[in-house]
């Protein structure tokens, strides 16, 4: 690879055609940096890490060099560049870890029951449907919720399960499709008595 032929003129170098990467051809993966292991930081062989880093770094420098002098105002290619923006790997990993953990380890929401002195935290991902969830709540809090009907909510029961969604609105559990509920539910409150009946009538 002749680097001396690299010019900083915004030539269309079509770097993507010549780039080295770790993925299979055709897979449009963003730049992979040396394996970052924040959750699995068992000792790895240094040679492996070195190889990965040097491969990815070269690709980045090709891109970096090529994009350096874009005078005509065309935006640089949007592929990731190694070490840019300059945020420490440690910090980047911590933010990423959170995202993946949310996917893998479940959606925890707090459940409060009117009149009960404590809160419980449950993982919505454990349940596959509303009936499952409601049964679990009944078992957990030793109360009867009954079943949901679109027209009458939880009429016939002293309790109505409600939840706060992402927009801050309080909804009746069961109003939206299950998957949407799992994604939007921030916390739950099992309401009691007349308040419950009022809500159920909405």
């Amino acid at each position, binding site marked *: *690879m002749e680097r001396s032929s690299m010019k900083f003129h915004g030539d269309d170098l079509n770097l993507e055609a010549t780039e080295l990467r770790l993925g299979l051809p055709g897979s449009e993966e963003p730049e992979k940096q040396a394996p970052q292991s924040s959750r699995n930081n068992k000792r790895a062989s240094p040679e492996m890490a070195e190889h990965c880093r040097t491969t990815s770094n070269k690709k980045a420098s090709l891109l970096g060099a090529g994009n350096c002098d874009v005078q005509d105002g065309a935006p640089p290619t949007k592929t990731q560049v190694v070490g840019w923006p300059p945020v420490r790997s440690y910090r980047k990993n911590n933010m990423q870890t959170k995202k993946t953990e949310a996917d893998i380890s479940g959606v925890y929401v707090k459940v409060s029951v009117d009149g009960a002195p404590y809160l419980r935290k449950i993982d919505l991902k454990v349940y596959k449907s509303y009936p499952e969830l409601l049964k679990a709540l009944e078992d957990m809090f030793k109360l009867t919720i009954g079943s949901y009907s679109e027209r009458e909510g939880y009429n016939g029961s002293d309790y109505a399960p409600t939840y706060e969604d992402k927009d801050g609105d309080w909804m009746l559990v069961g109003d939206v499709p299950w998957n949407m509920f799992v994604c939007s539910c921030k916390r739950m409150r099992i309401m009691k008595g007349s308040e419950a009946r009022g809500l159920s009538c909405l």
Partner: protein
Amino acid sequence: MREDPVSEMSEDDDRSPPSDLGGPASVTVSSNKTRNCTGVCGSGSSSIEFQAPYPDQVLENVLESVLYFLTSRRDRSAASLVCKSWYRAEALTRSELFIGNCYAVSPRRATRRFTRVRSMSIKGKPRFADFNLMPTNWGAYFTPWVAAMAKAYPWLEKVYLKRMSVSDDDLALLSESFPGFKELVLVCCEGFGTSGLAVVASKCRQLRVLDLIESEVMDDDVDWISFFPESQIYLESLTFDCVECHVNFEALEKLVIRSPSLKKLRLNRLVSIGQLYRLMIRAPQLTHLGTGSFSTLEVNAQGEQEPDYISAFSASKSLVCLSGFRDIWSDYLPAIYPVCANLTNLNFSYANINPDQLKSVICYCGNLQIFWVLDSICDEGLQAVAAKCKELRELRVFPVDPSEDAEGPVSEVGLQAISEGCRNLQSILYFCQRMTNAAVIAMSKNCPDLVVFRLCIMGRLRPDHLTGEPMDEGFGAIVRNCKKLTRLAVSGLLTDRAFGYIGKYGKLVRTLSVAFAGDSDMGLKYVLEGCPKLEKLEIRDSPFGDAALSSGLHHYYNMRFLWMSSCKLSRQGCREIARALPHLVVEVMKTDLEAEVGDYVETLYMYRSLEGPRDDTPQSVEIL
């Protein structure tokens, strides 16, 4: 956030006098004089023997007594240049040794000159190593240093390392060699694991401080917390928020209970808020707290009540520094309200909170001086900070999404607000997606005390998003108006004009970071010719070539290092520098181990050194 150790270790840090040296008198032979010196003034244990009272000897003893009180590195350096006897006296009385570049001087040379060191600080890799721009086995090994120190400094008490490669064996040697060892601080280090920590915990019987900051610690499945013996009751600071493996909570709790002097405790993100509570009620005397995850990690057990977190914080009347919040559950945020008024330092940089959540806290934080936060708080959150935090000295705004195409919740609006509200600002690091010259100029005028200005517009080559102009005028105003500026990081679309400004006005600038900027060699020339105080220059992806490089020949011996990657350098150009300056180590890093790269230099890292080329380079590094 902990008082940034970097700023504590900065060159212009005048420390308070070191504690009484104590220890045995050491005997030094110099020319044909023999004397016992303690270098301690008024300690009561000095035994100065006069064989025959040479006037010179009396003077030297007096000199030592006086120099003992000299703490600033620069002053000491100046003193040592006066004459030979001052050099000797200074060397004997230097108890804190700072090595800014571990390859600038050898352990042997350092320990020979300074024989009575109690505290060692060593910095290794350059900062760009943090961004994966260096091979992982590049160097900066602690091993030769600890070996030399073990022989030379039996009374060593403190070690501070930044960006060094530290092995478990190194930690073991350290633990065995220094019976009075008190403080270990590792910042951005790697190469060791929990087994190394276990040795330190068990063998350093006098340990007061164990701080691991943004370091990579390998999980050896060793329960290192349990290795602190029952006799360990002196702990003052324990920081392990970067350790990514579970610690034995029961052992930790017992440790906290038996450590009445514990003032600083920073937990990792695997400690739940319930566990935090248990520790807080045992240690209400804490001044610095890293809260760990700040959320519950498991389902509460049947019938278990949530602890009263608010009361725990209320009881912590001495808290001035709060950090952690790694997996923050925003419902718990109100728990910290009781301590907000006393906080001088708040690190929310791992807490993904929205503007309203931030406002609910910041409205109490009238005394805040140091604030680290994520851009999730948006411009609106920054406006709230500006309105309340009139004492703010340092602000860092990190991106939740550190990529070029991200949304960018903060902008020039936030920066402008901060500049108007926080007139005492001294240091700022600001990540954003869009910026204007006007806001930067406003900050330069509103915040004349700025010492550190680091703006990172994450999209490369982005101009002022309102005018379409380059960001030259903004940065120009910063160097022109901020007369105390010593550290600058630039970004966005920048022409050579920006560098002209830096060279013309940046007379105190010591550290400069450049990325994707400039048009031609002139840019770098302006800086190298114009900035007499420049010590650290790191450049990436900018069109500066050999001619620019040679324009700095007059200055490189005054610098700690120069880094240039993905620029327009050739081997020939770099070799010429190496030839012209024999005391400069010129390292060229290859990114592709196999291919012949021709004349182009991908990465140049050069630094002054008394030792010549090092012998521990990896394959990817060549020294010209």
